[in-house]
């Protein structure tokens, strides 16, 4: 990848290292004795700190995942043309939109 993509990848990785650690701890704690929508939403509803954290999480993932996929596709398949970069930009936008939509969903529900 280019120097710019590499930096974006490693920077988002650093953000995710922190976010994923928090997320894993939350998951493991939250799934005790089963998981209901009520339990999730009780924590996330109207919680601005939660919203900010997960919005940042989603943004980092939307940068990190497509760049990782780019490496895999370029190295393991014949697809290397600029159309790959375009397709991955679309995937990044998809992750961002779906992700922010999900964060919003549990914020307002």
């Amino acid at each position: 990848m280019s120097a710019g993509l590499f930096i974006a990848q490693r920077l988002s990785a650093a953000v995710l290292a922190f976010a994923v650690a928090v997320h894993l701890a939350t998951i493991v704690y939250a799934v005790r004795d089963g998981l209901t929508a009520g339990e999730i939403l009780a924590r996330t509803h109207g919680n601005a700190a939660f919203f900010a954290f997960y919005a940042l999480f989603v943004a980092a993932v939307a940068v990190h995942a497509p760049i990782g996929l780019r490496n895999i596709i370029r190295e393991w398949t014949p697809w290397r043309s600029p159309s790959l970069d375009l397709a991955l930009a679309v995937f990044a936008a998809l992750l961002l939109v779906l992700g922010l939509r999900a964060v919003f969903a549990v914020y307002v529900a």
Partner: protein
Amino acid sequence: MMRASHKQPGFAAALLHRLSGLALAIFLPLHFLALATALNGAAALDTFLAATSNPAVKLTECALVAALAMHMTLGLRVLAIEFLDIRERTLVVLSGCAAATLAVGLVFLLNAG
């Protein structure tokens, strides 16, 4: 005869890192779609959670949680080599990452089962 480069611990680390990342990238849009069912109210999310509470799904979730832990720990290895100039003994580090992965997966399974 498997080529020697594929028997290297660094190759195993990179392969596991790549495959876990791939699994997560495929899973994520589905995860976002599932959570967004809450837009239709808490009951909608509850319906989805109930529908996916069978053992096969729980096992898949456990695998994904383990994949996340694996991807993170192996990613920290890459960051350490590249930016902290750490000259690590890969096999030791790899074992540590595997242990952390299993621990996280196990804790999830015990809590969610």
